[in-house]
Structures are given as C-alpha cells and as structure tokens.
C-alpha cells in the first residue's frame, strides 16, 4: 500500500499523547501512514477548548478539546485512542475512556471523522489486539499491524529507559533537587508545565520528574504504598515519587483543576509521606504565572532553611 492512499491522520498533542505518543507515532510510521500533530499547547488553544468542553471538566480535557479543534478540517481522520483498562485491576481515569465519544459528540456538527484504538482488556481487547484492529481499520493486514505494534512498543520502552537513565545522571549532579510529580500532559505541556520547570531552573534548582521511570517498576512500588489505587497513570506517578524521593530535597505535586484521581492520591501522599516538604500546586485556567512563581520561590526557601543554608 502506498503512503499517500490514506489521508493524513491527525493526533491531538495533549492528554495521553505525552505518555503513549511514541507508541502511536511509531505504529503509524511503521505502517507508512502519514500523520500530523496539533501545534504545541498555547493559551489560545486552551481558550478555544474551554469554550467547547463542558464547564466542569478538567483543565486537561479543555486543553485536549482545543487541540482537537486545531485539527478539524486539516486531516482525514483524527486519532483519539480509547484507553480503558489493561485488566480488572489496571484501569485508566474515566476521562481517557470517554475522550473519543466526547469529542465525536462535541464536534458532531463539523462532520469531521474520528478513529479510535480501543484498549479495553476487560472486554476482550488488550493492547496488541487493539492495535491490530486499528491497523485493520486503516486498511492493513493483521500481520502488518502486529509487526508495527511490536516495533512501536519497543520504541516506547526504549524512550522510557532513556528518560530514566537521563534522570539518573541528573540525580548524580550537584544542586538542590526538587521532585516534580504530575501527569506528563501537564508537566510536558509548553503552556501549562514548562513555566514551572523554567521557574525552578531560574532559581537554580534541578527538577527531577516522577514520571521518568519504567512503568512496571513504578507500579510495583505503588502496589505496596497504596493497594487499592488502580489508575495506571496515578500508580506510575505515585511509584515514581516513592522511587525518586530519596534523591530529592522536596516534592512539588502539580495537578490540574479538578483532576479526579489526583484529588485523592495527592491527599494520601501528603498524609503518608512525612518529614519532607511537599507543595501541592493546582493549575487552573489562570492567565498569570506570578502566583505560581511566588509559591515556588517560597517553597525553595523552605528547603534551603531545612538544609541549614542561610538566605
């Protein structure tokens, strides 16, 4: 099949893209399907999304709908994978589960076509099979799709290992280290998370990221800490925190308003991790960074005091 027979697929650069994007991109590339990404997050995208999404939904969903809006009419189909679960006790936040149908309903009047990849092991569609079906839906054979998935998942593993390795080098370096924990789609987003990282860098602190860890290791660490936590992504963040916290001087918990899983896991974390400064930061649709900067600066001051440094 030639490369141009399928119109380009659009991928919104938001939500689970920052966690599984490597997998999707490599999968499409292995099949020779061209794709376009929505531009990196900006204030404008968030504002567009805020108008489209239900008022009460979370900041990340608003951002996501803004990204989908950017792709409308610019590609053949928009890919919104549906991540539901990897099994009975390995779930995803319901938000990712509903994304595909929610976007279809919000953008119904535009006539845009959407395509999904349904990962729902409880209902007989685990990840390999889901990608196989996705490939078949794109017009490839099951065999081709399976091979593409294998290649893509290897690429994802490699990236995760590389992330972990890079972080290990950071921990060995000098300077005050702050562990920054949150969903990757907040931390990696140029509009939402980057200002926080910049602010830390400007103050001379090294930011360690809780999500830079191999998922299996993280989930194992979390199972002991919080046995009934079943949201995979939250487990990974919790596990990451437990794994890296000994190397850090303080923890910043970044979450989006009003994130469902975070509202509970962050509370549990604050109650169970003692003797370490923790700063919970909730990102909102606010336009200024001044408030965040003040809080981060005073948080760093607290860490310095604790370490006995004079200001």
């Amino acid at each position, binding site marked *: 099949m030639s490369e141009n027979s399928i119109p380009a697929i659009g991928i919104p650069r938001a939500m689970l893209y920052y966690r599984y994007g490597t997998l999707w991109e490599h999968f499409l590339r292995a099949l020779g399907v061209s794709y376009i990404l929505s531009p990196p997050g900006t204030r404008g995208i968030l504002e567009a999304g805020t108008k489209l999404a239900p008022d*009460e*939904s979370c900041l990340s969903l608003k951002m996501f709908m803004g990204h989908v809006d950017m792709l409308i009419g610019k590609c053949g189909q928009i890919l919104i994978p549906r991540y539901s679960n990897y099994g009975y006790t390995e779930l995803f936040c*319901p938000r990712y589960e*509903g994304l595909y149908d929610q976007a279809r*309903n919000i953008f119904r009047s535009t006539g845009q076509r959407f395509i999904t990849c349904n990962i729902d092991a409880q209902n007989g569609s685990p990840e390999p099979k889901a990608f196989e079906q996705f490939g078949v839906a794109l017009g490839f054979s099951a065999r081709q799709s399976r091979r593409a998935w294998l290649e893509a998942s290897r690429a994802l593993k490699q990236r995760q290992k590389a992330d972990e390795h890079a972080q290990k080098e950071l921990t060995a370096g000098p300077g005050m280290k702050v562990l920054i924990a949150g969903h990757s789609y907040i931390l990696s987003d140029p509009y939402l998370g980057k200002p926080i990282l910049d602010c830390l860098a400007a103050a001379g602190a090294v930011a360690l990221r809780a999500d830079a860890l191999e998922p299996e290791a993280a989930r194992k660490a979390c199972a002991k800490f*919080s046995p009934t936590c079943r949201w995979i992504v939250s487990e990974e963040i919790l596990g990451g925190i437990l794994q890296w916290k000994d190397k850090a001087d303080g923890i910043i918990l970044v979450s989006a308003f009003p994130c469902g*899983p975070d509202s509970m896991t962050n*509370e*549990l974390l604050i*109650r169970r991790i003692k003797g370490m400064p923790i700063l919970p930061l909730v990102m909102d649709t606010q336009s200024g960074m001044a408030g965040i900067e003040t809080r981060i600066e005073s948080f760093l001051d607290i860490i310095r005091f604790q370490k006995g440094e004079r200001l």
Partner: protein
Amino acid sequence: MKQHRKVALPRYGEYNCALKYVVEQGFEAQCILPPPLSRRTEDLGARNSPDLVCTPFKTTLGSMIEALESGADTILMVPGACRLNYFGELQEQILRDMGFTFEFINLSLYNTGNVKDILRALRVINPRRSMVKAARSLYDAARMVEHLDDLTSLYYQNCGFDPTGTYPKVYRRFIADMYAARNLTDIREGYRAACRALEEVPLCKPADPIRIGIIGDYYTVMDPFSNLELEQKLADMGVEVHRLMNITNDMLRGGGKNKQAKIRELCEYSMGASSVADLWQAQNFAERGFDGVVQVKSAGCMPETDIMPVLANLSRDRKMPVLYLTYDSQTSDVGLMTRLEAFYDMVEMRKKVNG
C-alpha cells in the same frame, strides 16, 4: 469470648436497612446505624476531606465519623467502578489521622475479579458465621432492596397526585418495617401491606401528567439528602417522577448488558461507571415521550461530566429538555427551587403548546 462486632456502613439513602439485615441476620454481628445525614455530617466530612474530591466522599466520610461517635468499632466500605473504589483507603487514613481507633473492612481490597477474594472478605466480618445463613441473608437482603426500590419508584410517581396525604405515611411506615425486619416473611409482609395501603388511595391524576425522568451518579441521585430531596420537590409540583437509576435496576436485575448496543449511535464505547446506564435511561425516557430529564451529579463527578455533550446532542435530536444539576456541599435549597420552578414552567408551557 470476643464481643460481637459493631459494624457500620455510611448512610446511603435507605439502603442501610439491607446492610443491617445482612449483618444482624447473616453474620450475627451488631449493626450500628449512623444518624440520618444532616448539615453536621456534611460539615464534618467537608472539613476533613481534600477540597477537590467529589461530594459523596465528603458525605460518606462525615457519616463514618458519626458512626464512630455512635459506638461502631468496625467500618465497612464498598468498592465501586469509579473513584468510589479508592474512597475506603483514603477515608481510613483520614479517620486514623483524626485519632479514631477502629477496624476498617475495605471491600475494595477484595474486589479483584476473583470470587475467592470476595468469600475471604465475608469471612473477615465474622469468622464463625454459617455460610448458609450468610448466603440466605444476602438473598433476603436483595429482595428487600428490590421491594424498597419498587416502592420508592411507585411512591415518587404518584405522591404528587395524592390529595389525602396517605402516601408519605405509608412510605415512612414501610421504611420502618424494613429496618425492623428479621426474616423474609417480615420483608414480604411489609411490602405487601404498603402496596395494599397505597392501592386504596384515590389519586387525582390527569390523563396525561407531566413526566420527568431523573438520571445521575450512583450516590447523589439515590440519596435524598444529597440531592436536596429533588424528587419530592418535583413531585410536589405535580410531576410524575421516574427514576430508573437504582440498585435493583443496575445490579440485581442484570442492568441489561446490551445497553451499550442500544445507545451505539450516541456513544460507541462506555465512558465509565454510570455513563452507559445514564445515557440508556435518558434515551429510554425520550422514546417514551417524557417531558424532560434532570441530570443529577456531584461536583467533579467524572463520568457524569463526560456524558454532558452526549446528553446535549440527545436533547437536541429528540427535542427533550434536559436540566443539568451539579451538587456541592450547598447549605440552602433556594437556588435549586428557583431552577426547578423555571424548568417546570418551561416544560409545562411546551406541553401546552405541543399538545
């Protein structure tokens, strides 16, 4: 010899009567009923909970605190399909941090999809229980829940058209009977007596009354305190109130595995927890020509927020008004009343115009 456990489950509508039955008749332990939900419950819960968590978490935490104050030594917490599954672990931590001493049976721990684990959980409540007795009590309690849901459903459909004021009396009597029931005969008798009493009431119902369907998240929609007695308020305006969302329909009677297939045009996949049931119910109300639907949810409920765009499309396609209500730890129901009255006026006017 060890004393009987004093088991409590946070208040959840009137369903506590079934738990009381299982604990007392099946496991031969004592069941402590927390006081009815009140402003105090909500304050206690909200003060000790994280800010952004959904309201049912706060209400159930408040109820647990009140249960411990009433002398319970064991708290039972149920698993669930959404955040509810994680409630137990965090609530236990909060209660321990508050300084309470108690035993916590978190059924989420045993909710692994494996039957053995569920049996293990039952053993925890009373190790010396008879399995036969426990099984029988569960069966009886399921009947109790069915009767309770059936009668509640009948009550809200008709109580707005009862000029004699008998309905509330019978309903209260029935609830009291259920709490006092000691065997299946008591349960059946109580239900039959209530049905007979209700049948005798002469209703002044127009041939084509205004019918409104209620949908919403598992806790808020089924708990009259949490939804500020929404159903009673609508019924008092002279509305036939229908609610399909209850434990009987959703769990005991199968709930209909094929609901997802029936709403495929609206929504291809499940959006989690109560979403499929809600959308199916809304569509069902639309097909039956209802005059409106009210969606009840607690602030921050994820599946319920996710279905809003779908509901909006359903409402547009079927020309059926939908009122979206979000409940937080409110202190007054005046705002709710205003919105309900406006909704009622609109629905009534539409009915007159459309015939």
